[in-house]
């Protein structure tokens, strides 16, 4: 449509004499076209939200990690309609409200002098507030659920140093460079560093905490799937930061016990640590 022709979706004016209310159908008016663009963009955004995290992120081995994935999906689905409003208006404006013709000269007439609209502003602020409250309710709930200590928690002491990780299993005497976890057993990592700050990041477990010298920081997770993962360092820690990683795996309790014994733990200690019932 031409830009200099008066737009026809002005707010309905009260009939005065023989003037008429615009009667063009919804989808041929700018607002209708914007709605179509909005709907398509929202659909695309929601589809991205559902599929992208699933395909791009590693398979999470803990329910904390699965929560990360759920958060990504939920937040994207909530954000898509809002982002699509902005994108739809912008996209339509480039087609429907564009100044055609010689771009060296400004448009012959100015746009309507809309200096604000308190209803639109209130709706905008109200919507964003409600969305933020939803995000907060979700985030705080998930976070508080993660921060619970369980009775049968397996303790693992993690020590970072330039540029390797050491995992110590208290009570077994096992001290390794490989992180092996039993499945379905809550685990608490007591993380510290002997030199500079490192970031203890077993990515597929969906948790992370810094290793600070002189302090023990704590993070908990409960593996619920079998699999392998890599522990990486997420804080720049000097020359070979890139090479600071350790292999990790989640195995069954029986295998965990066997592994502990292969690392030098006594049978009793290994079975106690692995919760293997006699």
């Amino acid at each position, binding site marked *: 449509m031409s830009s200099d022709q008066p737009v026809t979706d002005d707010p309905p004016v009260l009939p005065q004499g023989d003037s008429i209310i615009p009667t063009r159908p919804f989808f041929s008016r700018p607002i209708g076209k914007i709605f179509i663009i909005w709907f398509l963009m929202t659909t695309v955004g929601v589809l991205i939200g559902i599929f992208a995290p699933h395909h791009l992120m590693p398979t999470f081995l803990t329910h904390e990690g699965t929560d990360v994935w759920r*958060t990504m999906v939920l937040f994207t689905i909530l954000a898509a309609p809002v982002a699509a409003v902005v994108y739809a*208006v912008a996209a339509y404006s480039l087609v429907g409200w564009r100044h055609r013709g010689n*771009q060296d000269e*400004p448009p012959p*007439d*100015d746009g309507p002098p809309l200096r604000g609209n308190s209803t*639109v502003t209130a709706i905008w602020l109200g919507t964003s507030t409600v969305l933020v409250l939803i995000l907060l309710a979700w985030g705080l709930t998930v976070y508080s659920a993660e921060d619970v200590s369980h009775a049968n928690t397996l303790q693992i002491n993690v020590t970072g140093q330039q540029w390797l990780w050491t995992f110590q299993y208290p009570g077994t005497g096992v001290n390794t460079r490989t992180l092996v976890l039993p499945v379905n057993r809550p685990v608490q990592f007591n*993380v510290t560093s002997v030199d500079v700050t490192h970031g203890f990041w077993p990515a597929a477990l969906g948790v992370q905490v810094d290793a*600070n010298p002189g302090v023990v920081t704590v993070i908990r997770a409960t593996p619920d799937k079998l699999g392998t993962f890599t522990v990486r360092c*997420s804080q720049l820690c000097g020359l070979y930061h890139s090479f600071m990683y350790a292999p990790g795996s989640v195995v069954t309790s029986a295998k965990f016990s066997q592994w502990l014994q292969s690392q030098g733990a006594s049978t009793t200690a290994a079975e106690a640590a692995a919760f293997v019932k006699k």
Partner: protein
Amino acid sequence: MTVDFAPQLLEDTPIGPTAGGLYRRQNVWTGLAAGILLGFVAYLISHATLEGSNWGTDMVVTVTMVGWVVGFNLGVGTFNAPLRWALGHDQTYDDELYAAGVGQGKKRYYKFCTDHKVVGTQYLVLVVVLFGIGGTLAMMMRTQLISPHSSFLSANAYNAIVSIHGMCMIIATIIMVTGPFTNFIMPIMIGAKDMAFPRLNAMSFWVVVSAIPPLLATFVLGGVDAGWTTYAPLSVQAPPAMDAFAITMIVFVISVTVSGVNTIVTIFTMRAKGMTLGRLPIFTWASLVGAALSIYAMPALLIAFTSMITDRVTGTSFFVAGQGGTGWLWENAFWIFGHPEVYIILIPPVGAMLEVASTFARKPLFGYKVTVAGFVAIAALSIMVWAHHMFTTGWAPELAGPFMVTTEIISIPTGIIFLCLIGTIWKGRIWTRLPMYFVYLFLWNFIIGGVTGIYLSDTPADEYFHGDMFVTAHFHYTLLGGAMIAATAGLCYWFPKITGKMLNERIGKTAFWLIAIGIQVTYFGMFWEGFEGMPRRVAFYDPIFQHANDMATGGAYLLMLGWLVLLYAGIESLRHCRTAPANPWHSKTLEWKVPTPVPLVNFLVDPVVTSDPYGYGEPDQVEPVVIPPPDPDRELVPNLSSDKPLARGDE
């Protein structure tokens, strides 16, 4: 007393010989010479007295860098006026005119010049140079990451480049709008004849210039291997480069603080008659809020880096675990600066971009007051969110919830920017000139940057993404795709006013498409890396991240090409393009009412403002500015340090 020169020719007018001496001979070269000399002397003295002691090398580097900074500023003339005043004889009237750039033609751009337009232009060149340095470092990083175990850079060189790329870009983006546009455009916008403190204005520029060589010297002093955030204790143990880095930051804080105070005072005291706060152009509001925020945030950085230097040089232990210190102290101090800092970077360009949006949509700004309130709310909230950078550090886990709340609430005032933007575009007459292209690109990028920021503000999700490439992609979308693109919109918009030439839009639009596509490819590549779990700041990576890195590296080359084409468009326009008229965009703000190029005296007569500058399409359209007839008895003084009449030498 009337000055009998034509104000338009003022910068070429010969100036009386009554004053002079050393003062008239100072420029950037004398600054360099004095800086190198004093730095060398400082090196010799400190080397002779301190080398071999416990912290000797760090002390030598620190003293040498301080010597350079002080020497450069002495040599370039930063301290002339205060030194003279301290010696009992103030600057003469001719000195003031000289300092304002009268009678020096193009040479004034290489000098300590108090004219706000010269300072703005100097800042613009500096920003381009800094982006050139930072961009080159970025390309070196992306080239290293072209394959998992590339031998293009050593691990140490990569870490040093990561750190300096980061801080160089942070410095460049903090000054990219407050430097060129707040200095050049903003005073004219509010009808002022200059900034409130012209000497401090020039000082803020030359001080930041003196901060750049120490930043680059880090490469020959062993390299900063701790990232731009220089987390302790790694940074306490870093090579002597870290001392030079800290000096850079301390000097930079001085510059930004001085410039922030100047901006605030200018906006509150130098407005033209009728320029009420409710009629201030939105860019002025944005500059004001950004400046106020920098006054709040910068001291934290000053304290942090001062403590860092004393830890390294004199053996204090603010950040040394086991001796009463902790790295968390550094992280808190750094992010108390660091999070307001991103809004110091963001708010002024957004204000500039909203000026562009209103002009090219030919509509009044939508929700002016709400937008100003949004800026203020962002600034207020931004000082309460810093610990979201520390969700995974283990510090105060109980505070993760409250900081999640404040962080997510900040998205409400940020959303107002989008409301203002699409409300302004709504039913406009979209004039698609180059500046408007960048407004749309801002809109596209900043939504992506904002949404990905919400994932990161969620503590459980941050426990996956923290410290990985997702974060890198997110803040590049906000700072490059958002702030820098908005600043580019402002640059294309004010280019005719600043340079007097129209920008070549044909080349500019080629650059635009390269930049637009380059950003998406590069940073979606980085999002992909982040989803897969690639940590930040690694020189070598697991081959499983290969494809994502290919995408990011390819996009980065495209992006760099785009910026180079834009630079070429600027240079080509300066050399060939047609002369700009005074108001090529038919805009209503005051800077377009003065001639192009802007004469040394901004306004022949003081303007009187009668409305805000957004009266597009209003039926009873009045010109927002009344220019009264010239007063023949009025003294045309370009810009002097105070409004008080100056003692004229011996008269």
